[in-house]
């Protein structure tokens, strides 16, 4: 039983180990703040600009994420107190950032994917605190805070200037529609996190988590390789025009791609590294041999290392460099900002793998920290009971607005259709639960699936499917 042995080995001395992480996180937060402050002082910019506030929020959210995860690993009660304080400070900075932008633009920040993420992160952080204080689900921050951190990092890369509203967006219904959307999406995120907690508490096999985690990471890397791998091992990324801060557009719907040489191979290796644990899991299941799972866990380690290497290489090679383009002669610049979603996918993969390791090492501790499976099941259901009416309201408000703008309340636009699909999935959840008495694991799967559909509706549709909803 290698896991058991590791549990013993990793056990830190209770008192000193408890302070060590606090001191480390505290010092890094202070260090980052001081460095940022010096930077602001040197450049002479405004201290309370939106990007500075957002940076503060990012630092505190990251600190909170580290502490929540540390709490997950060691079970030190003090971590949670500091983690929720850190979340609260981050939330305050986030609120100020929202207020600042609102004040500057004279309208709520709902008009671009950047602004929606700003509101989404705010809602996620607020709901985390509510879930923690009101429902006593303290560990939930170790899932939602990394999510918040990924979103804030993504936002650093998305075009953030305040753009005037195009005519179609000049409507009160924009605010109603988007507020409802962000609230319901954040509640769905919460229900998904709660459902995962439930699975941990419900003696869900650690191997199954292994399978899902590596399936997700594999999906990210296989998708990147499938769409971006170029001949001779290059990786194609979008060209970036630094002056206008936007993608280089060749024609309607045609972006200019540049090829970063050799980077493609690294992604292929990372994809293989992510697939190996998955294959080992399936082999182990087919042969009914547990020792394969032990090897798979080691493979997850290697996969994380590979992911970190790939991420570092990606950041180093893609940030502010010029490469040849397959479409046109000459060298074209690219930047991290040109590929926010590749980066987001990679960071999400690393977080997911780390969360799995946390579960692997500290399962028994986690179980004692979490509320009972029954409570988690009920709270998940409650979260969906809140999300579903909000989702309904969002669709209705969107339909009413579309009727005033496009002349039709329903035009089967991909975003609309996927919103309806999300609604149907959650309606299915409610029916199965209420009339068929689905409780526990099946309901939890359903809740996780529901959030998967939400994420696809929110981000996937915008970047993969063409449609009218161009601005979101």
């Amino acid at each position, binding site marked *: 039983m290698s896991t058991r042995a590791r549990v013993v080995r990793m056990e830190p001395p209770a008192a000193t180990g408890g302070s060590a992480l606090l001191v480390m996180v505290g010092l890094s937060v202070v260090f980052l703040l001081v460095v940022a402050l010096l930077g602001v002082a040197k450049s002479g910019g405004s201290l309370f600009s939106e990007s500075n506030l957002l940076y503060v929020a990012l630092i505190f959210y990251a600190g909170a994420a580290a502490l929540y995860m540390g709490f997950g690993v060691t079970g030190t009660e003090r971590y949670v107190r500091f983690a929720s304080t850190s979340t609260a400070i981050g939330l305050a900075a986030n609120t100020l950032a929202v207020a600042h932008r609102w004040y500057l633009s004279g309208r709520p920040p709902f008009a671009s994917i950047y602004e929606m993420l700003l509101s989404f992160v705010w809602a996620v952080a607020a709901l985390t605190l509510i879930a923690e204080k009101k429902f006593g689900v303290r560990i939930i921050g170790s899932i939602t805070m990394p999510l918040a951190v990924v979103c804030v990092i993504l936002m650093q890369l998305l075009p953030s200037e305040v753009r005037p509203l195009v005519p179609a967006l000049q409507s009160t219904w924009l605010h109603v529609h988007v507020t409802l959307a962000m609230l319901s999406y954040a509640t769905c995120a919460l229900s998904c996190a709660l459902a995962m907690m439930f699975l941990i508490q419900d003696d869900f096999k650690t191997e199954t988590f292994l399978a899902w985690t590596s399936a997700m990471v594999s999906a990210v890397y296989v998708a990147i390789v499938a769409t971006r791998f170029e001949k001779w091992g290059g990786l194609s990324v979008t060209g970036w025009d630094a002056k206008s801060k936007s993608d280089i557009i060749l024609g309607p719907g045609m972006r200019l791609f540049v090829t970063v040489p050799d980077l493609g191979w690294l992604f292929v290796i990372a994809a293989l590294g992510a697939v190996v644990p998955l294959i080992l899991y399936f082999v182990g299941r087919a042969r009914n041999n547990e020792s394969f799972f032990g090897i798979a866990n080691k493979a997850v380690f290697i996969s994380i290392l590979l992911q970190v290497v790939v991420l570092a290489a990606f950041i180093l090679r893609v940030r502010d460099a010029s490469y040849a383009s397959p479409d046109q002669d000459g060298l074209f610049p690219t930047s991290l900002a040109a590929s926010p979603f590749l980066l987001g996918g990679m960071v999400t993969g690393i977080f997911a793998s780390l969360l799995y390791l946390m579960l692997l090492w500290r399962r028994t501790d986690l179980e004692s920290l979490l509320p009972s499976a029954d409570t988690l099941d009920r709270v998940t259901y409650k979260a969906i009971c809140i999300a579903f009416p909000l989702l309904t309201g969002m669709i209705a408000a969107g339909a009413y607005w579309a009727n005033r*703008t496009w002349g039709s309340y329903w035009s089967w636009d991909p975003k609309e259709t996927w919103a309806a699909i999300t609604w149907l999935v959650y309606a299915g959840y409610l029916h199965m639960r209420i009339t068929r008495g689905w409780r526990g694991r099946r309901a939890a799967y359903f809740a996780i699936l529901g959030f998967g559909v939400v994420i696809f509706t929110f981000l996937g549709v915008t970047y993969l499917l063409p449609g009218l909803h161009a601005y979101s």
Partner: protein
Amino acid sequence: MAFSLQFIPKRIHKTFANLRTGIVLLILVVLGSALGTFILQRPVTDADKLARAYSPNTLRWLDRLTLTDVFHSWWFLTLLTLVSLSIVLVSIDRFPNAWRFYARPYRKTDSHFRSALANKVELPIKNSEQGVNAAERALKKLGWPVERIAGNEPSLYSERHRFSVMAVYLVHASLLLIFAGGIIDGIFGYSGFLMLKPGQTDNVIELRTGAKKQLPFAVKCYAAGQENYADGSPKRWWSKLAVEENGKEVESKEIVVNDPLVHRGLRFYQASFGMTGTIDGVKLLASPENGSGREITLRLNEPLDLDANTSVTLAEYIPDFFIRDNQIFKRSDNPENPAFRLQVKNKATGEDAKLWLFPAYGEAAQGEKTNYTFAYRDMQMGYFTGLEVSHEPGQWLVWAGCLLMGLGLAVAFYMVHMRVWIAAVPDARGKLVLWIGGQANKNRDRFEQKFTELVEGIRTELESASAAPRSERKEQPELTLAGVK
């Protein structure tokens, strides 16, 4: 059982009144609509784009399988109809039970029920009438409605939000309303496009299918325009429209995006704004041989008198010209390199002079000699406003359905049907007790709190009732509590 024709309706009913069938149908709808978002759809995509995205062979197959227009295909509409049918039949199947539960609440407990109920408390009492009275006072203080139940044992029944058990039917009915609205619009509704130039009146719209449709009234466009932000992106599109019936203007409105004109159930939306490619007018400086010039605006083929003897006409406009063999030809419709031909008529002599104006190569007009010189100042392009026209008679059903659904969901999720039974009965050992039981249809932990609160209230009432003989002193605590409230 022999399989006869009589059983077919029954079998159909059995199949569709089944929740499992409903869920399977919903899954099919989900898969179908997902397919419709991954494959480009004809109604919203240019034919060119489709041709570029798919090979001709693939496209032929997609068309044949109706996958390029999933949302209007017979199979998708059939699926939606079957879902509606399923909702109706499931609801009908379950309704009688729910209605019985709603209309005839279970008020009077029996010993079997009392022992099976989960939430219950027994408080010892001396006198059944006194105990029930105390419970009634406690219930009233906490705001519960109280019903006294006649019978051998004095007992009480109290409930809140009974209608919440029917809310799910509201939600399902609202869904059917929305579907009905959609179907009505699908059958009787239409939508099309109307392009108007300023000053133009029209009553024929082009439908999505390409067919023309005549409206019972005409729409006139007085003016239209676009306003830009400082960075050049569009801020506002507007059109001043008027409705004319039998040649009389009956309504007028300036519409913008998000604010349509509605007349007789037809809605006119500001959809687009653009250039027609033709010229609206050209502004020139016309100067006589000796004297100061004045600015004139010429429209195509409309003569303008410069003085008693001379008139000038804009005879020809070429948006983008080129010269070959001393002849002027048109290269494109792009108005970047225009040429204007002016015709100057001298009424006294009857002479006709021809001049050309090439603004890209200098502002002065050149050609035959006249007693005026012309210099180019400015040109205004003709523009049009594009109106989206739609007739959706079913939309009110849709909005009513949305409101009803909001109401239904709010009641279904946030109103809890809570019931409390109280009876003075002998307990298992034959001693007289006040039996208190309660039940809620959701949010059970919250109800448990309320139930405990209620039991505590009754306990206090019982104690104060037994401590004090029936006198004025009894009123004391009631008053304070009422004061606190």
